[in-house]
Every structure is written in C-alpha cells, then in structure tokens.
C-alpha cells in the first residue's frame, strides 16, 4: 500500500483555516510522525497533527501547559556525542555500519561524503536525492550527513532529517540513528530503543519514496544502525535494529491520516485553533474533536494534561488506565460502574454487572473482616 497521495484540493485551505490566519503550520518531524502510532485512535490528535497545529502553544493557551522540556545538559551531551561519532569523515561510523550490517563488503577505507548544502528544504531534498542516486551508482561507500528527505503526509510534504544515511557498495541504503543513551554491556533501555526504531522507520519510508523514483530502484535496508555511547564512556558502539514491524505500522497509520479530511468535515463551521483566541473559544473548538485520552498520553502528547482534566471531569474510567475497561463491558464512567456495583443500576443478569456486584461484596467482606481484626487487636 503506497503512502497516501491526497490531492491538494480543498483540504489544504481547510486546514489553514483551522490553524488560524497567519499561523504557519508546525513542521512534522520524524518523532512526531512516529508518535502517530502512540494513540492512533485519537481523532483530536490526528487532526491537530495533520493540520500542523502547534500543540505546545495550544496547550498553554488552554491553560494546561505541556510538561515537555529539554535540559541543556542533555542537549549538549547529544550534540557532542553526534559530533564525535561523525568526526574524521565519519570513519568510525562507517566502520560500525560495515561491522554490524555488511561485513562481507569491502571495508570502508574510502567513502564519499557528498556536499548536501542547498537553499531551502526542497532544494536540500532534491540535492539529497541526487547524491543518493550518484552514490548508489558509484559502487563505493558514501556517507550522507544530515540529508533531507521528504514524505507525503496527508497531502502535504513533511521534511525529515535523519542523522545520517550510508550508501553501501552494493547500492543499498542504511538509516543511521545516533542517540546519547548508553549501551551497557550490549543492552540499552528498551523503551528508548523502541522510540528510536519507530523514528528510523519513518526515515526508511521516506527513503523508499526516493528509491522508488530511481531508474534502477535501490534497496532500502530494513535493519537500521543505532549508534550509542558504549558503557560509561563517550565512545560510539552500535547495534543493528530490525524495523520491519515499525515500518509496517507507521505506513498503515500514515495511510489512515487521510481521515483528517473526514474529521475536519465533521467540525462546526468556523472552528479555529489559533492560540491567540480566547480560552473559552479554544476550549470549545478542542472539545468538538473527540479525544481518546489514556494515561500513556502523558508521555507522548503536549495536550495530555488538558485531555486528562476533561477525562477526569467526565469520570471516564480510561483515565485510570486502558486495561481497566476490559472487564467493564459497556460501562465507561466511574459513576455507572459504582452504581452497578452497589446495586443501584444495571441488570443483574448482565455478566459485567453480576461480576461487579460480586467484586463489591467480596471487597466489603474483606475490609470489614480486617477492620474487625484490627479492632480485636486493639482490645487485647
């Protein structure tokens, strides 16, 4: 299934209207695209991301600012490490690609490092595509430092900048992701590796678009190279990461972004998310978009505190965790569940209601037994 190619018909202007006059769309980067898979059931997030709304600004305007921030220590450390990995014409990086992904190829003693400078993202993307074509044809190693790729997302181009792409002598391409969390004795934080894999999968998809346009299509490798500091040092080490699963999921979610049009069509006329609008108006606009809040959003979405507040106000059980819902059948609010549990509502023949009542009875029995025991202990 190819990534969506929505014609730039009425959707573009419609989305601009939603962002507000004069508001530039927030560019989608690979991290944001990868995050689409974090809660694909959320229509609020799908539309706001699809329309390029700046969710950080929106959250602040709504009075629930996001808690994401980056320490300058982490930032400096990340930059210093990347510079170190790429020092010396990327010799160490190429050595790692050769060792971990393509040991049967000739060693990368010499590698092309094409100049990718150009004006504007479009220019850089075109320059990158050209450099990739030339490198693939050359039959040698090449290192593309911060190339620019473009991916069609719901009809508009998203510009993506991987840390590096390496062209192998066989003409195939590898995405390189450089992270500053350590690989300690060959293992690394699985949550962070997972995030890096999802991000890399976006680059793989974007590279595949470039590859498919070549006269002789190049192979984009589905194993990427993750480069991290080794143990407690600042020396690079690396591991190959298979991103086939992440690629499949991201591709499907990107294809589903065409829903943005449907979601936009369902919004009342005149809905707008410009951060300078009055808070009440913004709140109403956001509320018009159905959300699927779950506690995991807190780590993945700028709007999470706003959505959490709403979800708690409504008494939605999901605000206590996705897994809670599994045994509650059609009951979705705390009020309904408690009413059913305490015999105030619900059909006792319904297995959900019956199970809730048994649970409530057993809980009450245990708590009173414990209270009686504590009472007994006090008397002695």
């Amino acid at each position, binding site marked *: 299934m190819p990534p969506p190619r929505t014609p730039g018909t009425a959707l573009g202007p419609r989305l601009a209207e939603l962002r507000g006059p004069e508001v530039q769309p927030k560019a989608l980067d690979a991290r944001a695209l990868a995050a689409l898979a974090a809660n694909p059931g959320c229509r609020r997030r799908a539309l706001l991301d699809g329309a390029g709304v700046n969710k950080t600004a929106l959250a602040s305007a709504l009075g629930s600012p996001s808690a994401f921030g980056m320490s300058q220590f982490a930032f400096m450390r990340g930059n210093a490490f990347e510079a170190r990995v790429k020092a010396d014409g990327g010799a160490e990086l190429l050595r790692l690609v050769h060792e971990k992904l393509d040991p049967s190829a000739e060693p990368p003693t010499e590698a092309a490092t094409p100049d990718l400078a150009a004006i504007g993202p479009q220019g850089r993307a075109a320059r990158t595509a050209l450099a990739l074509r030339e490198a693939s044809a050359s039959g040698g190693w090449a290192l593309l430092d911060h190339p620019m790729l473009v991916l069609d997302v719901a009809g508009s181009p998203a510009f993506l900048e991987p840390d590096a792409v390496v062209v192998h002598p066989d003409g195939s391409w590898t995405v390189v992701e450089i992270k500053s969390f350590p690989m300690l004795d060959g293992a690394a934080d699985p949550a962070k590796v997972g995030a890096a*894999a999802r991000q890399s999968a976006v680059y793989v998809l974007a590279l595949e678009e470039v590859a498919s346009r070549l006269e002789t299509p190049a192979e984009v490798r589905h194993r990427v190279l993750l480069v991290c500091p080794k143990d407690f040092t600042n020396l690079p080490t690396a591991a190959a990461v298979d991103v086939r699963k992440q690629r499949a999921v991201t591709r499907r979610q990107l294809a589903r972004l065409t829903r943005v049009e449907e979601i936009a069509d369902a919004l009342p006329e005149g809905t707008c998310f410009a951060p300078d609008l009055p808070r009440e108006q913004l709140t109403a606009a956001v509320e018009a978009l159905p959300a699927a809040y779950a506690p995991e959003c807190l780590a993945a979405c700028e709007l999470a505190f706003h959505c959490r507040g709403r979800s708690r106000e409504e008494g939605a059980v999901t605000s206590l965790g996705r897994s809670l*819902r599994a*045994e509650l059948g059609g009951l979705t609010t705390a009020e309904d569940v408690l009413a059913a549990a305490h015999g105030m509502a619900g059909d006792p023949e319904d297995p959900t209601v019956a199970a809730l009542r048994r649970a409530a009875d057993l809980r009450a029995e245990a708590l009173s037994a414990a209270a009686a025991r504590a009472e007994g202990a006090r008397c002695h």
Partner: protein
Amino acid sequence: MTAPVSSAFSPGAAATRATDAILRDTLHGTHRGVVVDSPPGAGKSTLVVRAALELASAGRPLMIIAQTNAQVDDLVLRLAEKDDELPVGRLHSSDTDPYDKALDDLPNVRKSTKAADLAGLDVVISTAAKWAHVKGVEPWRHAIVDEAYQMRSDALLAVAGLFERALFVGDPGQLDPFAIVGSEQWAGLSYDPSASAVTTLLAHNRELPQHRLPVSWRLPASAAPLVSGAFYPYTPFRSGTDHGDRQLAFAVPSDGSGPDRVIDEAAEAGWGLLELPARHTPRTDPEAVRAVAQVVRRLLDRGGAATSERSEEPVPLTADRIAVGTAHRDQAASVRSALAALGVTDVVVDTANRLQGREYDVTVVLHPLSGRPDATAFHLETGRLCVLASRHRHACIVVCRAGVSELLDDHPSTEPVQLGVTVKFPDGWEANHAVLATLGEHRVAWRPSD
C-alpha cells in the same frame, strides 16, 4: 494415507522427500542435532513415531522428551499402535494419576518413577519436567524432543546432559513459552532462559540441519494458504488435499437463521464469520456465547456428513468431530454451560493453549478480540490465533462482534525493543488483519434477536 495428486506438484511426494531427508540426517548424519519445523497437521507425531521406531530397530535405544503428560501418553499409545512388541518405558511422576490408565492395558509398556527401572528398554518417554530430575545415568545416544518450540530454553538446559544428540521437532507458529516473572535482563543473550529451546539451540549451533514438513494433511485447501501466509510467511506450506477433495454436507436444509447461514457458508468455503453487532462487552459476552452454542447445536442437528480422502463413504459429523475454541478459561466455561442448556454435553470446549496439537472436522471459535474495548499483547499473540484457526479439517466458523478491524487500527504500537533479540514474525497485529480480511469475505451479519 492417500495423497491426491492434482498438479505437477505432488504433496505426497514432497512430504516423503522431506521425511526421508530428516530420517537420513537423524540416523546417519554427523550433526548433534536436527531441527524440524512442522506446520499444523503436517504429520509431526507420525514423524516422531517413525523416527523412534527406526532408531529402535537400528539397535539404538533412545529417550523421548515431550512437554505434557498428555503428549507423552499419546506418543506411547501411538508407538504401541505401530509396534505392540516394542519395549517402551514410561517414566512418570509420583503424583496421583501420573499417566493415562489406557497404558495399563499395553503389555509392552513398563511404567516407573525411577529411570533406573527402565534402563535397557528401547524407548523411554517422559516429560521434560520429569527428565530434569534424572541424575547419574549414562547418557542416551539419541533423543527426540517433541514440541520443542513450546519448551523453554531453561528446560532444555536441565535435560540436555542426558543425551548426546537429538531430533528437535515442533511447530514454530503456535504459542510461545512464557515466564511468570520478568526476564528482560537476559533478553538478547543466546541462552535467555525464557526463550524457546530451539532459539537457544540454533543460536549456539548455527550449522545444524533444519528441515520443514511442507504439507499440512489436516488443513483443507481453503485454509492452508491463509494460515501459511498469515502465520508462516517465510516458511510456506500447502495442503495435502485440493479444493473439492473434501466436502461437508448437511441433510437438513438451512432455516435461514444466522447460525444456519454461516454453517452453509463455511461448508462451502471452509471459513465462516458470524458477525454480531458492534458492542463493548465483558469477556463472557452472553450473546456471543449463545451464538457459539447455537452454531454447535445446529451443526449437530442438521445431520452433517464429511467426505474426505480418509474414507470412501461420507462420515457423520458427530459431537466428537467438533470443537469450540476460546481465548480465556471463563469463556470456555460459559460456552460449556450455554451448550449444556441446549442439551449438548460432549463437544470439546477449550482454550487455545489446551487445543494445541488437536484436530477436528469443524471448529467454532469465539474471536479473541470480539467485543473488547482494546487489544492487548495477550490477545494479539500470533500463536493464539494460529492455534484457533488451524485445528479443522473441513471448516472453521468464527463468531465475532463487528469493529475488530477498527480496534486493531486504533491499537497503540509503542512496544519496547530489546537489542539483540530476533524480531518474531509474523506480527500479531498484521496476522490478525490478514485473518480478518479473509473472514470478511465469508461474513454473515446477524442480530440474534432477528
């Protein structure tokens, strides 16, 4: 077994070639291990029995390691069926009822809790758990490890000292072994104790010959392509029979109800989806449970007959040829009571875990994701769906609420990734989509109140 030939490719010949190669490597090869992947119904047990008999007749005593007592007893019975004079030892635990009473009727089988009592017998069989307690014996020259993909690496570690070389047989598509505590700290290690025995074996012995049985004799031509494509994408297999070789017919015509229509669809196409209206329900969704029971009731009432390569005449579709599969135990219990209420007491109803390795003419499956508000790793586990979708010889009827496809699309995918761990394919999410897409072509939408 007659193998109908319908094209240039003869499944019978292909299967024979594979078996011959396996036996050649096992009896005459130089490697310490031979690994055989067997898709559902590809004749794994037949292979194990044959390999055991050939080793024994070549004068090479062997031990057999299976995973459950039921599997062990089944193998003992199968061996006796082929050769009722072969001296077989059944090593068992000291619990109450440690083995199937049917073994007491076999004069060639000696039973004991001590390996020493069974020394010298041609074949000694037990579970991995029992073998692990055997110490201080001379190692066997040969072993057969059955259901090796369901065996944990640490269980193999405990018994591997008992044999010099072994034939490892199993189905990589079924449920993986699991640990009840976290084992992340060993993820990526070649000998991760929570991994499957075969994973560890091959990580340390890459040169071992690996074979695969290429033909499923169980699955009909309607099912093999889907099961192969969805669950064995890199090791495809085909069915031993062709379209038209098997038929399922009913004497009583359809009454036009949902259950009857889905039965007819499944009889014709091999698959049937009885789709109930979308709704979030508890696991024991009463409507879905009743629907499953009604389908079973109608299967029995309508005088079904199965025609296959196994016999000249159609065979009546009786209760013992039908099974119901669920994901959870409480669902199985609910289906049992719903069946009892309809007067059906002798149809097997069990979870995927317990249906592994079993075979029926028709299966009725309560879809693991039916009515759920969200998917979980448990419900997306490929092996669970694979087991449920591959127990039948003729037809599989799935009962499910509408909306599962959207549920899958809305499933967050933020799985952690462990360095060095081979990614398991296929992905449960994709496999579920593939199965749903096929089922969707055989859908009977039904509102039970209609």
